[in-house]
C-alpha cells in the first residue's frame, strides 16, 4: 500500500503540471485580461497600460510567464539567466537551498491584480467559510442520501420509492440560483425568519475568523453557534435539496444490486432478521461504490459551491472565484484553480485508498 501511495504521489506531479499548464493556457486564450479593467478608462494611457503589462510580466512570451508563475524562472533574470536565482543556483530550488522565492513552487501565488493583496491571503480567508458550508451540506446530504436511497431500494416500486424518486428529480431539476432566491424571498423577505445572506449578523457578531470573533465565540459559544446556524440554514437547504438526488439514486442502485446478491439470499435463508440483512449485509456491500463517490465529492469542501455562495453572499471560495472572474484577476483565478486541482488529485488518491480499506478483496500491493 505504501509503495502504491508513493507511486501515486509521484504520478501526481506530471498530472498537476499538465493541469496547471492547461489552466494557464485557457486563461490566456479567454477574452480579456488583467489590464482589461483599464480598457474602458481613457485616462489610463497606452504607455501606462504597457507599463502595467510589463509590471505584471504580461509583456513576456507566454512560456516565460508560465515559467515565472511556476517558479522555475527568475523574473529578474535575462536570457538563460532566467533559470538562475539571485543566489546563483537553479531558481526552482527552495529558497533555503539557494533557489528563488517566486512562483508556486516557493509558495508564492503572487498578488491579486485588482486589489494588490496576496493571493494566498485572499484564498486563505475563504477556506474555512467554504469548508463549514460545504462540510455541513455534504454530511447532511450524504446522510439523507443514504437514508432515502436505502429506503427507496428496500421499498422498491412502492409509494416511498415513488415519493423519494419524485423528490430527488424535483430537487435535481431546480436551478440552484432560482431555489436560493425563492428561499430568500419566502424566509427573509416575507416571513423575516432567516437572514438573507452572509455568514454572521453584522449588528451583533464580529467578523468571522478575526480575533474578536474567536473571543466572542469563546465567551458566548451558544450565541455564536446559533448565529452561524441561522445563516447556514438557507444555503445548506439549497445545497442539500439540489445535491441529494445524485447520491440518493446512486445508493438506491447499489442497494438494489446488493439486495439481489446471493449472499443476501443466503442470509435470509439462514433466518437473519430483515433489519440485519439490510444494514449488515446489503448496505455494507452497497457502500463500496458509495464511499468512492463521496470521496470524489470532497474537493467540494475546498472549491465551494459557486452559485449557492453567490446567492447567499457566503464569503467562501466560490464567491471569490466569481469575483476574480469578474475582475479578470488571473493571479487569484490561477491560485484557486490550481489549489482545487491539487485537492481533486488528492481526493482521487484518497478514494482509491478508501476503496482498498473498505473492500478487502482489493489490494494495491
Amino acid at each position: 500500500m505504501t509503495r502504491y501511495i508513493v507511486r501515486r504521489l509521484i504520478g501526481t506531479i506530471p498530472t498537476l503540471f499538465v493541469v496547471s499548464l492547461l489552466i494557464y493556457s485557457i486563461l490566456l486564450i479567454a477574452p480579456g485580461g488583467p489590464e482589461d479593467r483599464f480598457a474602458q478608462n481613457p485616462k489610463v494611457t497606452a504607455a501606462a497600460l504597457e507599463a502595467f503589462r510589463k509590471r505584471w510580466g504580461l509583456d513576456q512570451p507566454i512560456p516565460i510567464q508560465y515559467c515565472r508563475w511556476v517558479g522555475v524562472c527568475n523574473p529578474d533574470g535575462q536570457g538563460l539567466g532566467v533559470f538562475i536565482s539571485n543566489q546563483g543556483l537553479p531558481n526552482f530550488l527552495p529558497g533555503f537551498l539557494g533557489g528563488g522565492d517566486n512562483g508556486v513552487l516557493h509558495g508564492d501565488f503572487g498578488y491579486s491584480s485588482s486589489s494588490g493583496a496576496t493571493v494566498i491571503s485572499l484564498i486563505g480567508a475563504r477556506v474555512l467559510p467554504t469548508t463549514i458550508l460545504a462540510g455541513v451540506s455534504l454530511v447532511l446530504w450524504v446522510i439523507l442520501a443514504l437514508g432515502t436511497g436505502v429506503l427507496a431500494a428496500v421499498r422498491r416500486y412502492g409509494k416511498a420509492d415513488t415519493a423519494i424518486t419524485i423528490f430527488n428529480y424535483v430537487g435535481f431539476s431546480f436551478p440552484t440560483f432560482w431555489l436560493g432566491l425563492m428561499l430568500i424571498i419566502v424566509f427573509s423577505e416575507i416571513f423575516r425568519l432567516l437572514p438573507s445572506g452572509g455568514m454572521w449578523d453584522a449588528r451583533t457578531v464580529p467578523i468571522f475568523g478575526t480575533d474578536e470573533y474567536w473571543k466572542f465565540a469563546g465567551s458566548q459559544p451558544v450565541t455564536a453557534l446559533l448565529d452561524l446556524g441561522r445563516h447556514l440554514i438557507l444555503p445548506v437547504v439549497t445545497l442539500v435539496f439540489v445535491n441529494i438526488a445524485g447520491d440518493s439514486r446512486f445508493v438506491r442502485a447499489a442497494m438494489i444490486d446488493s439486495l439481489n446478491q446471493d449472499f443476501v439470499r443466503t442470509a435470509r435463508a439462514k433466518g437473519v432478521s430483515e433489519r440485519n440483512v439490510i444494514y449488515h449485509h446489503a448496505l455494507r456491500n452497497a457502500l463500496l461504490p458509495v464511499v468512492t463517490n463521496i470521496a470524489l465529492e470532497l474537493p467540494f469542501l475546498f472549491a465551494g459551491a459557486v452559485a449557492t455562495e453567490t446567492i447567499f453572499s457566503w464569503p467562501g471560495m466560490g464567491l471569490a472565484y466569481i469575483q476574480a472572474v469578474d475582475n479578470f484577476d488571473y493571479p487569484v483565478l490561477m491560485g484557486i484553480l490550481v489549489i482545487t486541482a491539487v485537492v481533486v488529485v488528492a481526493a482521487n488518491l484518497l478514494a482509491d485508498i478508501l476503496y482498498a480499506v473498505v473492500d478487502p478483496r482489493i489490494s494495491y500491493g
Partner: protein
Amino acid sequence: MRNRLGSLIAVSALVFAACGSSTTTAAPSVAPPASTAPGTSVASTAPESQAPIPIDITATKYKAEAVGNRGGTLVLGMSGDPSTAWTNIYDTFANDGEAFGPSLWGLWNNTNDLKYYGQLATNVPTVTNKGVVLTGSKMDVTVNMVPGANWSDGQPITCDDVIFMWKWQLDPGQDAAGNVQGKTGYQDISSIDGAGTTTCVIHFSKVYEPFLGLFGPLLPAHYLKTVPVADAIKKLYVDTDLKSAVWSGPYMPTAWAHDAQINYVPNTQFWTTIKKSAAPFDAVTLKLYSNTDTEIAGFVNGEIDAALEFNQNNIAAMGKVAPASIDKVASVTYEQHSWNYASLTKKFGAAGAKALMEALHYAYDKDAINTTITGGAVTPTCNFTNDQAWFNDPNIPCYKHDADKAASVLAAAGFTKGSDGSLSINGTKVELLGCARADRQYRVDTLNLVASQIKPLGIKLTVKAVPPTTVFKGWGLIPADTPCNLTHGNFDVAEFAWVATPDPGSLYTLYSSQFDPSKGDHSGQNYIRVNNPDLDALLAITQTTVDLPTIKDALSKIQKLYVDPANAFPEIALYNWTTVLLKAPTLHNVANNGSASVQTWNLEDWWKDK
C-alpha cells in the same frame, strides 16, 4: 454602478457608466473644417458679450439636520465587494467610493444637488471670490485648507500633503502601478506655494478648468513617503492592515472581510479637528452582499439600516419595501445611443447621413423605451446634462417623437422605399448594425425595440451582443476589424451610458473632432465621429476659461446643437438613470446623490433615532 466623486469633480467630465473616467491632455484648439460635419443651426460660436449672469456653484439646498441622537452602530448594505481602498487612485469602481470615500476626503466634493463644497478646504475657489486668478494664459488657485485639521494619526493636514501628492501623481512609477487618476491636471501645475502652511497657491501653467477635481482624495504625504511609488498599491492601504493606514474622513476602516463586511470606527482626529463635534455613531458596518436581490431582502429583513447602489433596474424587485424607504433621484448617468456618423456618411453620403440622423431623432419613441424596458422607472431625456448641473440650460425644449416627420425627412432627402419595404438611397439599402455588451440585456432589448420602431421607415437594424471588452477595448488592443468595437468605429449605433460630472470640461473629449479615436494616439472618445467646427469652437471655450457665465453660454449653444434634430447630432440621449437607495425611517440626513459623489457623500451627517 457609478464612478466616484473624485473622478467626478475631477478631471474629466464624462465617464462610461461603470467604467473609468475620461480625460485628455491634449491642448484645446479648433479643429479644421469637417467633411462629414453634421449641420448646425447655432449661429454664433464665440461667447457673446453680455452682462455676466452670476453663477454660484456652491449654492446648495442641502442642509444637514442637527444630530438628535448619538451612539450605536450604523449598518449599511451594498452588493459587491470593493476592489481597493485606494478609491479613485487605482480604481474608480463605485463601490470603492461608497466604502472608502467617507474615510479619505478630498479638497472638494459635490453635494446631492451637484454643487461644490469644501471638504479639507474651507471654501471653493472661483474667479468671483478671487480664489482663482488668471494671469495671461496661466492660472493660480488658492486653497485654504481647514486650519488645525489632522490626519487620523495626528499629523497635520497641510499644503505639504498637496505638494507631495502633486509630485507623487507625476512620478513615473505611477504608470506601472495603474494609477487611474492619471496625470491630467497635475501635469499642468508648475509649482505650489505654501509649504508648511494651510494656504496653498497652486500655479497652473495653463488654464485648467476642471481643477476642482484634483486632489480627490488628498493623500497623506508622511504615509506615502514610507514606500516607493511603485509599491504603494501593495504596501499602503492594504486590506489586511487597514488599522495602520492614515485617513482623513469621519469614519475609518479597521477590518475588511472580502465579500462580507467592512468595519469602521470614528476617526477621532476628524471629529476633534475638522468637524469639531462628537461622532453620531460609535461604529459603522458595511455589510457586503453578493447581489442586489439579497441586499433588498436584507433591508426588508432589518439586517441593514440603509441599502446602497441601486438603479432603475432594481426597482421592480423592491415590492416588499415600504415606499417611504425608497429614495430615488435622477442620476447624472444617462443612457444613450451613439451613432457612428462616419459610418453613416460612408454608406449614405453626407446629405443622406444628415437626413437619416435627423429622422432617427424623430423616430425614437423614448416613452415606449421607458415603459417597455425600465417599467417606467426613468425619465426620458433628450439632453446630456443633468437638470441640476450649473451649466444646464433649462429653457431648451425637447423634440417630440414623430414618425411621420421622420418619414418625410427621409423622403425629402431622396430615400425611397422598395417593393420589399426596405429603405434605400442611391441603391444602398439602409441596413445598420447595432451593438451592446452582452451582459447588459436591457441594452440589447432597447436596441431591438428601436429596431422595431424604425422598421416601418424601412430601416433594418441588426442587433449584435458582444463581450464588454469588445465594445470598449482600445485601439491597439483589439483587431481593427472587430465588429462592434467603438474605437475602430465598427458599428452604426451602440448603446451604453455616460456618467456626466458636474464639470462640463470633459465634453471636449467626447465631441471635439480632435478626439476622433481614428486619429492621433487613438485615445479620444469621440466614438460618434462628430466633426463640426462650430461645435469644436464651443467646446474649446470650456478648455480655455474659468469664467462660469462664458462657459454656461457656450454649453447652452452646445445643448441646442445636441437637442435640435435638424442638427442631426449623432448621439441620442434616451434617459437619465435613476439612482436608488433604501433607508430606514429612523435614519436622518440621508441625501441620495445621483452623481459620482456616491450615496455616502455626507456620511458624517447621518444619525439614527434611538
